[in-house]
């Protein structure tokens, strides 16, 4: 049995199928992955993501510590704003991918992957200098309210202030009587919010949100739909597209790396690896016929081994199979035909532009 989020009993009551993920017992689906996926694309879904970690850095050295720890610019991030970034190691690999919240001039919060909480905390403590580091993961509940109906649902419980939070910004709001840090962010490629609040209030707020969203077609959504949604948006998943060995540049995350400024852990190694040339680059692909390519499947180009699939699934929105793969640079150009070896058969695939599915209206 794994660790439980404060919403474990709520999931069981809703009839969720529970699976172990990153050491936690988590809902993989309530009704059906395809239905929950469609709910988020067309209406809204509510995800328990309380398994994710929150690590706070504070004190006069907090900004400089984060500037050293993270690939993204930190000093330019104003309070109330969020930025995506990478914690890199000395070899230019990725310790974790995180979202960084500037809570105050001298306080920052990193939202980190569940599987990496302990590793990240140790890494941050080891490199934070005089900044104070606090892991508030267990005390913090986190919900993701995602989908085109999310603003209306949140507005109903938090008032008009919710509608004023622009993309990649956050506010402290009262949501149905529960104080919550609400950011206009997510991991689905849909509009929506992430809410951070006291773990003790989780069952109450989860139910209030589901009730408030009932007319709008909000439904609880599990990790299964979260994965197909993030894949359609071509958002990387640590352990699949990112690892301690992979450079963020090979993963296509250059815009989250302060290459000119440098000065963060791993900056020199990242540049050195870029000069040497990355042996493989991350690309998106779609299958031309039936079947599903999955993580670990070999990729061929011109009948030669050319890489491996890191994530793959049927895209419910597109009605065909999609995936991400690391391939040799000569196979990375858009339109390149690939073969993907699935149970000793070759499925035809083509390198395509990502994201596979774009946000409505953008």
């Amino acid at each position, binding site marked *: 049995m794994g660790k439980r989020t404060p919403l474990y009993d709520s999931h069981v009551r809703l009839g969720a*199928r529970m699976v172990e993920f990153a050491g936690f017992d988590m809902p*993989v*689906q309530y009704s*059906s*992955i*395809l239905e929950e996926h469609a709910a988020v694309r067309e209406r809204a879904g509510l995800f328990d993501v309380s398994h994710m970690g929150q690590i706070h850095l504070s004190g006069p050295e907090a900004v400089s510590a984060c500037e050293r720890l993270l690939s993204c610019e930190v000093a330019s991030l104003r309070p109330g704003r969020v930025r995506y970034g990478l914690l890199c190691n000395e070899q230019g690999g990725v310790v974790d991918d995180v979202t960084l919240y500037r809570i105050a001039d001298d306080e920052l919060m990193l939202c980190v992957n569940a599987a990496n909480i302990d590793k990240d905390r140790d890494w941050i403590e080891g490199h934070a200098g005089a900044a104070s580091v606090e892991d508030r993961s267990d005390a913090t509940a986190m919900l993701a309210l995602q989908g085109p109906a999310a603003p209306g649902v949140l507005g109903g419980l938090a008032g008009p202030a919710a509608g004023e939070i622009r993309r990649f910004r956050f506010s402290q709001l009262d949501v149905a009587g529960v104080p919550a840090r609400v950011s206009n962010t997510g991991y689905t490629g849909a509009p929506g919010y992430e809410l951070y609040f006291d773990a003790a209030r989780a069952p109450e707020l989860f139910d209030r949100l589901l009730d408030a969203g009932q007319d709008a077609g909000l439904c609880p959504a599990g990790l*299964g739909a979260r*994965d*197909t949604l993030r894949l359609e948006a071509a958002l990387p998943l640590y352990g699949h597209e990112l690892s301690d060995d992979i450079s963020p540049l090979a993963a296509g995350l250059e815009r989250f790396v302060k290459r000119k400024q440098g000065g963060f852990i791993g900056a020199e190694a990242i540049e050195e690896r870029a000069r040497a040339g990355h042996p493989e680059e991350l690309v998106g692909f779609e299958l031309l016929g*039936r*079947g*599903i390519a*999955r993580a670990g499947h070999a990729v061929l180009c011109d009948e030669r081994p050319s890489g491996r699939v890191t994530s793959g*699934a*049927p895209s*419910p929105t597109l009605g065909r199979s999609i995936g991400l793969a690391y391939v040799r640079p000569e196979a990375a150009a858009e339109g390149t035909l690939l073969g993907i070896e699935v*149970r000793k058969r070759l499925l035809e695939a083509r390198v395509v532009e990502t994201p596979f599915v774009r946000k409505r209206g953008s």
Partner: protein
Amino acid sequence: MANYTFPSDCFYTKEDEWVQVDDDRTTLGITDYAQQQLGDVVFLELPSAGDEIKQGEPFGVIESVKAVSDLYAPVTGRVVESNPALEETPELVNESCYEDGWLLAIEPTDESEFESLMNSSAYRDYVAEREEG
């Protein structure tokens, strides 16, 4: 235990397939328990007419959004037909696993093999054991 249907006119395997002899046609598929465990079925690889399947051995593959599972033959036989509807509508396996979502029609070669299979009440107990475990 969750709510499952296991028709009494089918025989069942430990790998969660059913097989049914109806007049002169024998069909097989996956059980209600199996389809609920799998979740949304999105793709199947099935043998063609004329292929042989052998009791206890994999004869095909079923994929849900999240997972890939082998399909095991409940009895030995020759494939008469694989369900042509599943290519376009694999979700029939979820919607109607004993009827519209059948996988194969076969000609069994050894009637005695059916004796090694479970009836619906034995299979129900077998599912319950695993649910509790």
